[in-house]
């Protein structure tokens, strides 16, 4: 087996393809086991030059794992790799980058305290003759890159000051800046709204025309048909099929992914709407949003739509007391409530699924059980301080089964779960509370089609049981499909509330950019 | 200005109090006492701070006797009188006219202690040595003294069977002694670099059921606890270093130098051996 040492990476990259090699990247027989889990089992995969190859599969199917192997982050137990027909061996991310393989990771991987420019050019900073970094040049290059990609960000701002969506855009810019032949995108749009997605697709098309290959992972079906040329489907760590995107339908793929039919994506049921449980009047948070007012009634699902950075998440955080309001009133069951911290909100019957899984959601080092039960412990399930483990374990197991969380056991550290499964654990955390008012910020981020339908059904069920739901989502079909009414925001103002019957893409987008 | 090696040392506390008490009896004398915390650089800095503040004389209880050159130089070039107390600086020969030393001869302490024990044992026996902090000169010196005494013809029959450090600390000595006892070591005497460790060793022996009245344990410093132990018949010997005398002597020397009067280069304050026989005359002293 002719293996090429990393030092020849550049040569491989510069040289043309081996005659007869149709594929940019060929992966064969990859196997990867984690303790207790066989994440990939004899998987093969091929990527054509100038094509977008989509990867589909349920949460935990092994998509990210395969991509991380290709990007040199994990070492596979078995498998061979060919780049432009030449055998290569990947031992570190640096190797992969040298071979011309760049990746946008599912979990954001940025340096919080460094600037946007520093993050993008890390290890490739422009230097002057003395080896000093040329900050001006770096800034110039960043601006040039941003202009090319149409990203409106200041290269000097620090990552920690950016919203999740903007961080995602930085990741995209960083990956593009490597000018690599193979670009892997692991759920790049999970935090983006339509506008940015359109944006990203423009970038992808340009790259395609330059003859690069793109591996694209998503759980959003519509994206698949918009951008992909081929699609490969994975199930339970195995490769189950490759198709030309033009030859298959949505249902075909879903069937292949989950092994059963999913009939209805947004199983909205009209349930009786009860009395008002939450009233918000002129709620403001200085510098973030102002003058937000709405009523939320029993059994109602209120969607919250808007562009990225419109302040939707801020409203939710303020309602829950994460960032207490600077003005305005919150009434729960008609009584005014001074929400100073999440504790008071929870006592009043609220629950809040945050949008940033990593920062404000998961306790990454703790096990699944600890992650699920934490909110529950506040108000019960303990006798004289001693946690009633049995009862809680039963509850957790119920949630695990109901949400199909893919894990060997509840003692697994949550960090070892796939992104979508982590999200499910967090949803379980709040559902177990049996809240009166459920606030969901991007609830189905990174969740596969099958599970998404399940979660939608669950939300509808809860509404049927009289829970008032406030749902933020950047996926317009989701908001349109699920909500009884939709509140639209733009730059910290609410621009209107639309009823389900009047709601459509155009009306919402109109309000969102008003 | 006074810079002390450290504040939380019993002996140096007595010395310091000796200075303070004596200074109170002297009209117009105010002391500013600093704690060098066993740190040479801190001490040098303190002296420089004193000079910056324009004190009339400086008393230094050196952290490191070999590192006094810098202090001597600083004081001499600023023309401030300087008195070293308790420990003899290595550069004693190079001290200028406005400098003096008030101290006991450290060689005496370990020597007196070991000689006394040698006498009790009749010149032969196995001994355990508990050392102070390994990086501390008094510890190094006293341990060396022990070996020197054993090398003399009268004490040739003595043998060191184990030698370990307990870092001047009572409980560490308890631990060390218990570890030795657990090994079943047979010994005739324990020679400790100070009283605290000697008492620790005795406590360990007591709790292990060893008859401490019949054992031979020696220390240095003649602390209150040591004297009490001596009286109770546990400790057999300790060595008294006249801390208060050194403190008083240092203030005297500093005052004399500040007034322009000549002072002996080394004002010697002798060590004194304390045994049950002469115990009473020391009970009130430290």
């Amino acid at each position, binding site marked *: 087996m002719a293996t090429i040492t990393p030092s020849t990476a550049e040569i491989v990259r510069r040289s043309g393809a081996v005659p007869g090699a149709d594929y940019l990247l060929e992966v064969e027989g990859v196997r990867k*086991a984690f*303790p*207790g*889990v*066989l994440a990939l089992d004899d998987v093969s995969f091929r990527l054509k030059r100038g094509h977008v190859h989509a990867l589909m599969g349920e949460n935990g199917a092994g998509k990210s794992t395969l991509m991380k192997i290709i990007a040199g982050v994990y070492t596979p137990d078995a498998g061979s790799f060919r780049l432009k027909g030449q055998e290569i061996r990947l031992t570190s991310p640096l190797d992969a980058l040298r071979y011309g393989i760049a990746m946008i990771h599912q979990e954001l991987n940025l340096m919080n305290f460094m600037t946007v420019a520093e993050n993008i050019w890390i290890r490739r900073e422009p230097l002057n003759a003395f080896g000093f970094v040329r900050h001006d040049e770096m800034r110039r290059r960043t601006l040039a890159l941003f202009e090319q990609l149409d990203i409106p960000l200041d290269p000097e701002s620090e990552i920690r000051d950016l919203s999740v969506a903007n961080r995602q855009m930085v990741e995209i810019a960083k990956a593009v800046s490597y000018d690599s032949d193979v670009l892997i995108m692991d759920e790049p749009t999970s935090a983006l709204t339509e506008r940015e997605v359109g944006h990203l697709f423009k970038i992808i098309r340009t790259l395609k025309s330059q003859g690069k290959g793109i591996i694209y992972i998503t759980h959003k079906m519509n994206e698949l048909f918009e951008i992909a040329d081929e699609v490969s489907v994975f*199930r*339970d*760590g195995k490769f189950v099929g490759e198709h030309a995107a033009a030859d298959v339908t949505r249902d075909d793929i879903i069937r292949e992914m989950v*092994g059963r039919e999913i009939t209805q994506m947004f199983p909205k049921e009209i349930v009786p709407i009860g009395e008002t449980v939450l009233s918000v009047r002129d709620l403001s948070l200085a510098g973030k949003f102002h003058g937000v007012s709405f009523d939320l009634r029993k059994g109602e699902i209120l969607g919250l739509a808007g562009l990225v950075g419109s302040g939707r998440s801020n409203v939710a955080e303020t309602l*829950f007391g*994460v960032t207490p309001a600077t003005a305005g009133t919150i009434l729960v069951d008609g009584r005014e409530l001074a929400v100073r*911290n*999440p*504790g008071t*909100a929870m006592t009043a019957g609220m629950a*809040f699924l*945050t949008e940033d899984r990593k920062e*404000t959601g998961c*306790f*990454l*080092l*703790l096990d699944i059980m*600890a992650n699920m039960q*934490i909110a529950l*412990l*506040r108000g019960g399930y*303990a006798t004289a*301080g001693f*946690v009633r*483990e049995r009862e809680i374990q039963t509850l957790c*197991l119920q949630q*695990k*089964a109901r949400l*199909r*969380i*893919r894990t*060997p056991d509840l*003692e697994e550290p949550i960090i070892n779960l796939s992104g979508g499964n982590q999200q499910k654990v967090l949803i379980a955390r709040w559902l177990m509370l049996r809240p009166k008012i459920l606030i969901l910020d991007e609830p189905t981020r990174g969740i596969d089609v099958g599970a998404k339908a399940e979660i939608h059904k669950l939300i509808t069920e809860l509404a049927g049981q009289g829970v008032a739901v406030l749902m933020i989502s950047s996926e317009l079909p989701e908001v349109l499909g699920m909500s009884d009414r939709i509140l639209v925001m733009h730059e910290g103002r609410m621009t209107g509330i639309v009823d389900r019957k009047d709601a459509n893409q155009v009306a919402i987008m109109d309000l969102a950019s008003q | 200005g006074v810079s002390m090696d450290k*504040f*939380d040392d*019993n002996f140096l*506390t007595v010395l310091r109090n000796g200075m303070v008490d004596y200074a109170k009896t002297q009209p117009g004398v105010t002391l500013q006492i600093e*704690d060098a915390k066993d740190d040479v650089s801190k001490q040098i800095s303190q002296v420089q701070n004193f000079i910056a503040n324009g004190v009339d004389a400086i008393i230094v209880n050196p952290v490191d006797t070999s590192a006094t050159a810098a202090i001597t130089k600083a004081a001499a070039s600023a023309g401030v009188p300087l008195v070293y107390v308790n420990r003899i600086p290595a550069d004693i020969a190079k001290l200028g006219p406005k400098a003096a030393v008030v101290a006991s001869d450290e060689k005496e302490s370990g020597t007196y202690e070991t000689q006394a024990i040698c006498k009790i044992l009749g010149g032969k026996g196995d001994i355990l040595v508990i050392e102070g902090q*390994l990086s501390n000169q008094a510890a190094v010196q006293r341990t060396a003294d022990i070996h020197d005494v054993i090398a003399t013809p009268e004490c040739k029959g003595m043998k060191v069977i*184990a030698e*370990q*450090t307990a870092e001047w600390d009572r*409980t560490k000595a308890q631990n060390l002694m*218990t*570890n*030795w*006892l*657990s*090994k079943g070591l047979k010994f005739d005497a324990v020679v400790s670099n100070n009283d605290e460790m000697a008492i620790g060793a005795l*406590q360990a022996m007591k*709790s292990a059921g060893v008859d401490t009245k019949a054992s031979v344990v020696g220390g240095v410093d003649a*602390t*209150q*606890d040591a004297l*009490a132990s001596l009286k109770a018949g546990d400790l057999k010997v300790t060595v008294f270093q006249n801390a208060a005398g050194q403190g008083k002597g240092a203030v005297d020397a500093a005052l004399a130098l500040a007034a322009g009067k000549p002072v002996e280069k080394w004002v010697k304050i002798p060590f004194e051996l304390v045994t049950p026989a002469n115990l009473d005359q020391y009970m009130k002293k430290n």
Partner: protein
Amino acid sequence: MATDISSASPPASAETPVAGRRRLPPELSILGVMIGMMLLFEALGWIFVGQSFIANPLRLKIMILQESEIGIIAVGVTQTIIMAGIDLSSGSVVGMTAMIAASLAQAADAPHAVYPGLTGLNPIFPVAAGLLCGLAVGVVNGWLIAYTKIPPFIATLGMMVSARGVADWYTNGQPIGNLTDSFADIGAGWWPVIIFLGVAFIFHIALRYTRYGKFTYAIGANPLAARVSGINVERHIVLVYMFAGLLSGLCGVVHTARAISGQAGVGMGFELDAIAAAVIGGTSLSGGVGRMTGTVIGAVILGILTSGFTFLNVDAHYQEIIKGGVIIAAVVADQYRQRRRKSV
């Protein structure tokens, strides 16, 4: 390939936890290192000293007795570290509470009593005073960290300097001797060991099975998420540091009783030993990870080292040099074993 959770029927696999997957507690590995270390000394003992290292009750006792003071504060320090904090003040608080407890524990016939009117008291009083002082310091530490948001390192460093100052100032550095026998009994025989293991057990239970423990881990793993989950993070921080302070006070009392004397310099450097015991035992300084059993093993490992070296009569100078290496080697071995087991 051990398990077959990749089965296509999720509900089934969700209900039946797969056999053979039971996780071993991570401290088993460091326990292995500890046992290995004892066996090594046993072997060296037969070779060089001609006696058994382990089969000696007195040695087994001193091995843990000599670390029980460190151990008591390590119980508190471990909790602060799990909560992604640290407690540097513990050693100084030991010094401070030792002086305070000693001053209230003097016998009626003490010649230079600190409080001549308060001699010969029931040991309850000095013990209570020591514990309360420790507790108060802990509350101040916790309050500073929780409400002024300064790094725990700085808050407890400041407290470390100040508490040592108080200890030195309390009697101008004079030691306090002539303590009552009833007080001294607290530090006699097996008592320090019993107290150490007792508090370790209590807080082991608290960490594993109570809300207090779950909250401690949660805050250490992700304070933001803990807050969003409704935990009163500030109050809990105060609570944990309060316990740490209380345990430092307890250590001060035990130490004083053991030495039968209160000394200002006591406890110097204890904080580092305590942190070392915790970290050797597997507690992560970045928070969220750690167990009390690990800390106990960590403390015992330090004790084995000290006893082992004295047992082999290693030259005091070489002891130090080797000791550093052995600590590193123990943790490397632990790391290695854990990693290997993981990949099996």
